[in-house]
């Protein structure tokens, strides 16, 4: 005995008006759960978003020399560069992910409409090599490059080159930095690397300046090592630096370790958001299950009659599942506008959190499963009802 979806729906709507509350709950819940799931995934991805360098084999070393920072800095760098397994060692003013990285506006010389934002990294001539940057065009820095030249050399990433020069060759071109009020020459274009922020959509437009060293006391070095050496490098580096200027503060860590700190916060955020989504779903599920088990008696007579009229157990189960399916879908459809509105808010945080039909699909599947679970209990109970119920006097 098959009931048409329409008649099932009509029966459901008549059932105590609880129908519309359930629909509303699903509409609200699905919108919020979808957006929270999106946010949680965003957090997780952000935490582990690659920044474009080999994080496990590139070390960031910070230290505060006791002696003259400039002299000690130079000696430190040489010592690190000559350690076994070291591919390149550089002295840096602004390494990737540093807290003081600022952006600057660059424009192709004489063409203000090409103005683009690049995030700034600064280091010595060995810096690009220490980061393991792949050269796309032109050349990297050499020890002959001078930062105080009238056309100070810079390297830019491929993304930045595209927005400044389109498809033309960038190497050799001149740019003007509005921030520094100086003209700079692009000596080379490198593969994309993220300077600031481990967010999913962190800017890949990076400009690398040559700097002879920084005047503040803290010295920082970026050192790239062979993969095999990475696990044993830290103590060797520490020892080398101690020999030059003993009894000073030294911190050695890989970029992977540095990032894991950021990751913890992101996964913490993801956890919190997921918790709230879980709460929401539970609430809906519990409500449905509770009512279903409570209203068994109401259902019993109805189901008994159906069975007496020839309905099989299968038909009973199908009846409940269809009813639930229809209700869920109505709720999901009604929830889409709310999902859209919420995504507008979230996209202010990051454009990648904007409304996409793919996330709606995710929510739909999630709620179909939830609905199935919720319908399972009454479906099973209803199917157990014997046809004799129909003829009993209640």
């Amino acid at each position: 005995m098959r009931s048409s979806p329409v008649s099932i729906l009509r029966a459901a709507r008549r059932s105590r008006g609880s129908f519309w509350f359930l629909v509303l709950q699903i509409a609200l819940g699905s919108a919020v759960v979808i957006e929270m799931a999106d946010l949680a995934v965003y957090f997780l991805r952000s935490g582990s978003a690659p920044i474009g360098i080999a994080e496990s084999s590139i070390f960031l070393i910070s230290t505060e020399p006791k002696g003259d920072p400039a002299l000690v800095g130079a000696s430190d760098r040489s010592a690190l560069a000559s350690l076994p397994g070291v591919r390149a060692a550089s002295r840096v003013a602004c390494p990737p992910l540093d807290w003081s990285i600022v952006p600057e506006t660059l424009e192709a010389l004489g063409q203000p409409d090409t103005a683009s934002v690049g995030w700034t990294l600064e280091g010595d001539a060995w810096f690009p090599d220490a980061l393991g940057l792949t050269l796309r065009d032109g050349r990297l820095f050499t020890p002959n490059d001078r930062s105080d030249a009238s056309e100070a050399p810079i390297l830019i990433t491929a993304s930045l080159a595209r927005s400044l020069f389109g498809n033309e060759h960038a190497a050799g071109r001149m740019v003007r930095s509005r921030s520094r009020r100086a003209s700079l020459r692009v000596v080379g274009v490198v593969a994309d690397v993220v300077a600031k922020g481990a967010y999913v959509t962190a800017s890949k437009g990076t400009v690398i300046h040559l700097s002879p060293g920084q005047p503040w006391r803290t010295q920082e070095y970026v050192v790239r090592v062979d993969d095999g050496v990475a696990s044993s490098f830290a103590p060797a580096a520490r020892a080398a630096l101690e020999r030059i200027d003993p009894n000073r503060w030294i911190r050695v860590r890989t970029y992977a370790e540095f990032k894991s700190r950021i990751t913890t916060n992101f996964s913490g955020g993801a956890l919190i958001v997921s918790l709230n989504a879980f709460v929401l779903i539970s609430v809906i599920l519990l409500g449905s299950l509770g009512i279903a088990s409570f209203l068994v008696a109401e259902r019993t007579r109805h189901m008994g009659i159906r069975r007496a009229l020839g309905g099989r157990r299968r038909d009973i189960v199908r009846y409940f599942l269809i009813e639930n399916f229809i209700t869920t879908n109505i709720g999901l459809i009604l929830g889409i506008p709310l999902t859209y509105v919420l995504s507008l808010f979230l996209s202010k945080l990051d454009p990648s959190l904007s409304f996409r039909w793919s996330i709606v699909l995710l929510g739909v599947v999630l709620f179909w499963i939830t609905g199935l679970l919720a319908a399972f209990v009454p479906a099973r109970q209803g199917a157990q009802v014997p046809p004799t119920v129909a003829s009993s006097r209640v």
Partner: protein
Amino acid sequence: MLAYYLQQALRSLRRNPAYSMLMMLCLALGVGVWISVHSTVASQARDPMPGPRNLFHVELEHDSGLPERMGNAAGIWGLAHLPDLLLSYRQVSELSRSQIPSRSAGAFSTQVAVQLDDGRFVEGPATFCFADLFALFEIPVLSGSTWARSLDLDPNANVAVVDHDQARLWFGNTDPIGRKVRLGGVEVTISGVAASDPQRLRLYHLWFGGGYRNGLFLPLGLIERMRARPVFVFGWSDHDGASAALRTLDDGFVHFWVELPTEAQRSAMILLLDSYVERERVSGRASAPLRPTLRRLDDWRRNAHQLYAGYRMVEMLSLIGLIASCLSLVRLLMAKFQIRAPEVSVRRALGASRRAVFLQHIVEALLVGVGGALIGLLFASLEVAMYNAALPDRTVDFALDLGQVASGFGVTLLCALFAGLYPAWRICSIPPAVYLRWQ
């Protein structure tokens, strides 16, 4: 009559203990999230210095060359154009000579590596400032003293005040006063201990690297000798390692706070700033300030803490969660009351008015609300503990705020009340004849 309703409601809830528990649980889940989120936001967003103040942030807006749009990172970064507003060391030292403010303080914070007297190295934040910073921001000095004003810009000063919690970490329970620590190549003696207040810290110490507490307070003049590293500074390559760099650098990285209790002082200060800006412009410096602003403390706080959008968002999400809980409760109550329609019809037959039936069921809903609130409180405290565990770099510890708990209770009862309205109205509107079986 209320006592009777209570009695009947309790009886009704006891009759189906599992179902009643389920109702309370549904409500508690939404309430728990609501209370924990609002408590957290309250502890983060609490204004540590509420009320009208005479404290102003001096801003010399200039063109730092930073781009207008900083990309999405600016949203997290928050203060996209802060570098445009801050003063250079030179400007602070010049302006601080003015007699107009009752008190003033320059301040800037950075990360330093400190060597304790037992040789251990520790890393932590430091605030280079004037002695008056403590008074201006009402930071209690728990023991010892700060330094004399004459040392504020003295590069040879060698005193420091330590943050109380940090001192506990560094020195255990021993008295930090008189102990020496070494940083930036300079040995300083700790002369005082300041109370820890992370919330207050955020007013004068803008930190982008995570929720570190404060470590040391040092006279501003020391930054040059220590060659401490400022934020937001370009163009080091111009200065080639010269140690006088910080003193003459044109880039702004120092905050400057002034106390102007009277209207006359405020007007005088604005005039002073206007003429100062004019002098700077005339001197032809590249980054000459364009216009000065005296920004009130509460305005500064609003500007500086751009996370409000994030707060509102989580609050809204928790509200929706609460609404979903309420909807669950409505459905559960509807089912329960529906089952009881025959009994209600009997009561009506015996003379209960619609209002009496309505009230009785509202009381039952409220009782569920009470239970839900209690369980929700338990959930909330668990959640807050979880937030603390999940976010190690938080600025301020998340905690259950008493005010939020109380209002959470009230909100729960209100929710239970609203959730019960429709089911109670429905059950009392049924004509008694419908469910009454004579036979």
